[in-house]
Each structure stands twice: as structure tokens, then as C-alpha cells.
């Protein structure tokens, strides 16, 4: 029996767009605010700008309309137009947490005919296993996680 087992808990999604890899890269990164789901923020401000600073070590953050900033992570690899790797440093309590680091890699693959396949891999999600324990301590119940997830899902559905 051959089974493929992930050494890390991973989510992979892809989409193909009618644009060059460079344009897809630019929209994904420097123009991230044009598409980032508005429901998806961790700061206190409903009005915010999503930002990816265009260099290795740059910040990935939201900037509220009052100027407040909340970091989401960092730029780990900046290799236009082929690839960008961002860290996702957000805890199970949906707050910035530099100790809870997973990784989002996005590759931009030319498909010919002016099209680009954008492949996204969010890996290292097992780091939330440690968070699950913290959640349990905080909320004292096996349903604590589900409640938080329902909250996230509700926010997404409402957008």
C-alpha cells in the first residue's frame, strides 16, 4: 500500500487568471488591498488597507483608517514574478502572535496564451495544534475551537 502522507498539514488551492505572471504577482502582492476579503482582519478598524512590503523581511499587515497597524506576518521570499513566500503569524485567538508561524507560498506559473496559474500552499498549519491546547485552557471545553471557527466562517459568509 502506498500512501502519501503530509509531513506538514497543508492547504493547496490554485486559480488561473488571464494575465502575465508579472501582473498576477503584482496584483497578489503590491495590490493585495484590491482583493483581500474585507471581513478578514484582526485589528479594531473595519476600514483598513492590506499591505505587503515588496522585499524580503518586509511586513504583511493591515493599516487601519486611524493609522493603527497590525502585523500578519513577513515576506520570507520575494522572487518576482515566480514566487512569494509570506509567513502567517496569527494565533488561534485571531490576534497577531509571532510564536504561531505558518507559511503561505504562492507560485505564478505561465500557462501560455497569456494565462498564469497561481498556486497557493498554506503549510505548517499543525502549529495550531499547540494553540488548540491553549484554547482549551482558556475556554474549558471541547467545543471551544468550533465556536471560534464558526465565528470566522460567519465573518467570511457576511462579506
Amino acid at each position: 500500500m502506498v500512501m502519501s502522507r503530509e509531513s506538514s498539514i497543508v492547504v493547496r488551492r490554485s486559480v488561473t487568471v488571464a494575465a502575465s505572471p508579472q501582473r498576477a504577482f503584482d496584483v497578489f502582492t503590491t495590490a493585495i488591498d484590491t482583493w483581500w476579503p474585507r471581513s478578514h482582519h484582526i485589528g479594531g478598524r473595519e476600514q483598513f488597507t492590506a499591505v505587503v512590503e515588496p522585499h524580503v523581511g518586509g511586513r504583511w499587515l493591515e493599516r487601519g483608517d486611524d493609522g493603527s497597524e497590525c502585523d500578519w506576518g513577513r515576506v520570507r521570499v520575494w522572487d518576482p514574478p515566480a514566487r512569494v513566500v509570506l509567513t502567517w503569524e496569527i494565533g488561534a485567538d485571531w490576534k497577531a502572535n509571532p510564536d504561531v508561524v505558518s507559511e503561505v507560498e504562492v507560485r505564478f506559473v505561465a500557462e501560455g496564451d497569456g494565462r498564469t496559474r497561481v498556486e497557493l500552499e498554506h503549510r505548517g498549519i499543525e502549529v495550531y495544534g499547540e494553540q488548540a491546547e491553549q484554547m482549551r485552557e482558556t475556554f474549558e471545553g471541547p467545543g471551544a475551537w468550533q465556536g471560534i471557527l464558526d465565528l470566522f466562517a460567519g465573518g467570511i459568509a457576511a462579506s
Partner: protein
Amino acid sequence: MDALGDPTRRAIFERLAGGALAVGELAAELPVTRPAVSQHLRVLKEAGLVTDHQVGTRRYYQLDPAGVGAVRAYFDRFWTQALAAFADAVHATGDE
């Protein structure tokens, strides 16, 4: 206690990400004894990371669907929606 801080427990946890396994199957793949695997599984279970169920004479362990599996499902859903919005943004502005 940091349930995933131990390398053996992390290895067990990662194997269970591929599907439910019995203690013997885990022990066969790892350089530890069956009792040691059982002990690690107990810690993972207490931390809410894995659940178990009995099939005949064997007990199978799997990742707790209300734990990390649920987080994974959440990210899966989130990125599906985000990439659709991304594609719309690319197409809305047109190629230059």
C-alpha cells in the same frame, strides 16, 4: 505541557494527518516501542489533538476533527474565497 514539542509526538501527529492508524501501525513506522507510542497518544488525546475509536479488537487514532482538522478546513475555505476575489481583481483591471 507542549503536546507537540516532543519530536516523537510530532512524528505521530504528522502520520495521523494521512489518516487513522492503530498503535501497532505507528510503532512499525517509528523507532519507538508500542507502549511508548501508546503513552504519546495519551498525551495527544489529552491535549485534544487526536481522538480514538475501537474497530473489533483494534483501537484506531485520528486527528481530532474539531482541532487542527477544523483549522485546516477553515483555511481551505478562506483561500478558495480569497483566490476567487484575487482572480476577479486581476480581470477587473485588465492586462497592461
